[in-house]
């Protein structure tokens, strides 16, 4: 057992490169990133996603092999998917896997920005500092999300806590937020918040369980993944441990 403590730090890291980073235009950027990580003694196993390997298989393999830190190299979609597969596969709290993020591409990196990771240079320093924070997740069907789920379409039916139905006659943006997300003592009793807004005004509800039904639109979680409905949304007991920056903007 003691031998594991003597292993060099870099054995602990697995970097999962999303398939879009295989594009030639990211080549130089990734080379620079890898060089910086090596300088900081943070180099680890690199897994490039593509036709032969998807995120699910990559995360499952790493967890099975005992990797303790998985770094998502990509955008919001990459981070969301990695979170889902980590949470679905980690066995217990003692063997919790930590998530690191390296944002590639300027747009679609709102999750990284919320955790104070605004650039690749930031990301490398943040990985080195290894400031850990646990975040509570919300569950949608069999998956999870960090910040919010949205659906924007007319005739969306919302059933709250199996007690009452909410119907909107006009096109409405429905936003479900998982807040506060920093893990705390009252995790079991927490509720999620629902905000429905259109040009006439806004509505707000809090709930433990919500059913979303709309035959013409999907629910989008964390601005990146689409979930088919009916979608059942609830606060989850599951948490994810993330390496965050000092300037994180989540509460």
């Amino acid at each position, binding site marked *: 057992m003691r031998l594991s403590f003597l292993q060099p730090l870099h054995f602990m890291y697995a970097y999962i490169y999303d398939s879009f980073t295989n594009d030639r235009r990211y080549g130089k950027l990734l080379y620079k990133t890898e060089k910086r990580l090596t300088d900081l003694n943070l180099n680890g196993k690199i897994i490039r996603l593509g036709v032969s390997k998807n995120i699910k298989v990559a995360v499952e393999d790493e967890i099975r092999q005992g990797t303790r830190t998985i770094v998502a190299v990509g955008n919001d979609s990459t981070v969301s998917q990695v979170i889902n597969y980590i949470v679905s596969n980690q066995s217990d709290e003692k063997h919790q896997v930590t998530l690191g993020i390296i944002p590639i591409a300027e747009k679609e990196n709102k999750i990284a920005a919320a955790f104070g990771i605004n650039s690749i240079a930031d990301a490398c320093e943040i990985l080195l500092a290894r400031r850990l924070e646990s975040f509570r997740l919300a569950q949608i069907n069999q998956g999870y999300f960090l910040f919010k789920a949205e659906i924007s379409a007319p005739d969306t039916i919302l059933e709250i806590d199996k*007690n*009452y139905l*909410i*119907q*909107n006659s006009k096109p409405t943006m429905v936003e479900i937020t998982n807040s506060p997300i920093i893990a705390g003592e009252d995790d079991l009793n927490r509720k999620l918040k629902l905000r429905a807004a259109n040009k006439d005004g*806004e509505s*707000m*509800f809090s709930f433990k369980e919500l059913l979303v039904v709309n035959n013409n639109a999907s629910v989008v979680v964390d601005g990146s993944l689409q979930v088919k409905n009916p979608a059942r949304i609830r606060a989850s007991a599951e948490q994810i441990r993330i390496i965050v920056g000092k300037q994180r903007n989540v509460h």
Partner: protein
Amino acid sequence: MFNKQEEKENFKDAETIIGPSVMVKGNFNSTGNIVIEGVLKGGVKTAGNVYIGDKANITADIEAKSARIGGEVRGNMRIEGSLQIVSSAKIFGDIECESLSMETGATINGKITMGKNLPTEKKTEEKYTEEKE
């Protein structure tokens, strides 16, 4: 008579807001303040206060700590504290409350019971027996 802005200020921290184009069907139980500007059919029960906007349409029994009624309510109300009824209100149902204030123009079609010691709520069975007799 009543200052609308001031009235709404008291509900700034409302836990639930039912907006103007929203319809809620079912039993609505809450512990916080509720603002209703839309349509509600079912029941409302809260340990907090209820604000019913001038264009709201409620078909429900209401139980709350205090209430301000501006729209149309079809159902009985049981308010622990003060009930404020503004000129736009139309109420079809019985009212139980500790204190009542009402603007000219409001209409009430029902029985009003007021006082500090309101009768305890009758169980459905008792109500049914009384109605039969």
